[in-house]
């Protein structure tokens, strides 16, 4: 497993290729449907928050608050990324992201943005909410909680050895495109 620590350099991310297993440590920001549309529509990140050289995680976690007001993430797997396809490429460019964690893969526009700006799509295991929540060591902050609701808020999370697989790299390769083409050809033989 290749260790990947945020902030990530362009050189580091460009050295990764499809099929590499990575273990991510450092700070992640969650962001899903509402956040992507908001940023794409020209919305600003809260003061003090920067995605530069960082990672956005397509995730709406289950978070509970104890009596002292501390947040605890009790389940945190990835959500389906393709819904962010209309926005992701521009957000990678605009905010300087080096990584996008999600599931299911993304389309050609995101793949092109990954190549151009030095970003990779890191596939986490969908549904593995417990394994992934265990890698979250602390909740540092939450933004837009009231406006967007808990799953859609931006959660600032500290993670250690968060497991993911590179399925779209900076060199124009996408495992998702490969598997789709191969399975489509195989299906043609069966129908």
């Amino acid at each position, binding site marked *: 497993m290749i260790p990947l620590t945020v902030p990530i350099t362009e050189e580091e991310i460009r050295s990764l290729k499809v099929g590499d297993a990575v273990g991510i440590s450092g700070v992640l920001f969650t962001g899903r449907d509402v956040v992507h549309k908001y940023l794409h529509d020209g919305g600003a990140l809260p003061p003090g928050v920067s995605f530069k050289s960082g990672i956005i995680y397509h995730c709406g976690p289950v978070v509970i608050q104890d009596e002292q007001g501390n947040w605890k993430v009790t389940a945190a797997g990835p959500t389906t990324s393709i819904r962010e396809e209309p926005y992701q490429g521009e957000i990678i460019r605009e905010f300087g992201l080096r990584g996008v964690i999600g599931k299911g893969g993304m389309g050609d526009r995101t793949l092109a943005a990954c190549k151009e700006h030095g970003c990779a799509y890191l596939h986490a295991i969908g*549904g593995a909410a417990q394994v992934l929540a265990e890698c979250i060591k602390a909740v540092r902050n939450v933004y837009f909680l009231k406006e967007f609701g808990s*799953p*859609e808020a931006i959660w600032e999370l500290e993670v250690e050895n968060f497991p993911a697989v590179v399925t779209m790299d900076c060199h124009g390769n996408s495992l998702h495109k490969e*598997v789709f083409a191969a*399975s489509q050809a195989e299906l043609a033989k069966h129908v």
Partner: protein
Amino acid sequence: MNQSQRSKDVRSLPRLPPVDTESLTTYDFKMQSLRASLLELVRRTSAEIPDDVQKAILDSLENEKKGTIAESALKIIERNIEMAKQKSQPICQDTGSIILYVDCPATFDQITFEEITREAVREATKKGHLRQNSVDSLTGLNDGTNVGPGSPTIHFHQHRSPEIHVRLILKGGGCENVGAQYSLPNEKLKADRDLKGCRKVILDAVLQAQGKGCGPGILGVCIGGDRATGYEFSKQQFLRTLPDRNPSHELDQLEHDIFKTANELGIGPMGFGGKTTLLGVKICAANRLPASFFVSVSYMCWAYRRQGVVLKPTGEIDKWMY
């Protein structure tokens, strides 16, 4: 239709014969017991995968090629299932649409049951068994309770037994989004109005769902019906267990054929490539209009959350159904 019109129509309904109340069991719910039972049903459904599904996942792990990312995905899935059960925390953070199927006798008080279910859902959300998962579609607001129009959804069905069966499915949004409804004939897929045509569109749904619906998945399919009942019956197939057999010979064959063929496509867990694309296929048929021929496909992710309880007349859990 205005209110008075509607009342008049209801009054004009033919009178039903009087009910012989002596022969019927009465239901004296202790609110507290029923609420606790439903809360426990939600907790267990969210945290524990049914045995038949866990077995299918373990079998597929055995079968997957060693050292591949497909195998490592299944290993993480296996570990996740164990952890969720042990920690009593959600298997998946998307705790899904809350869909209840209640089989009950004619005397059953559905109104009270529904009220208590809503309370149990609020409570389960506070405790973190359910994510704050229900959003007002017009305002975008999430009040954090999981209770609102359409949530939870309860399907009541009367049966000639004094028992109360409550089955719960929590179905995540990722897999719900890849459900598909085809209207036959479908020229693009060269699918005619026959079982061969049904097979083509069902396999197309598997191809299109790859990666996005958290495979390996389980298909629930309805051939026929209208657009609403087609999807509804397709979802009800998820109440069946994976090893069960379809009583209809044709459908049983079709289930096995789709299962075998889909697992030869090389889509694999999470769409990473590999041998395990589906864990099961369940198909039913409903009558259709001569003009319509729908094939409705619902997709369930590997995090197949399905549980059920038989309740005592007082509302306590008598036994678990799966």
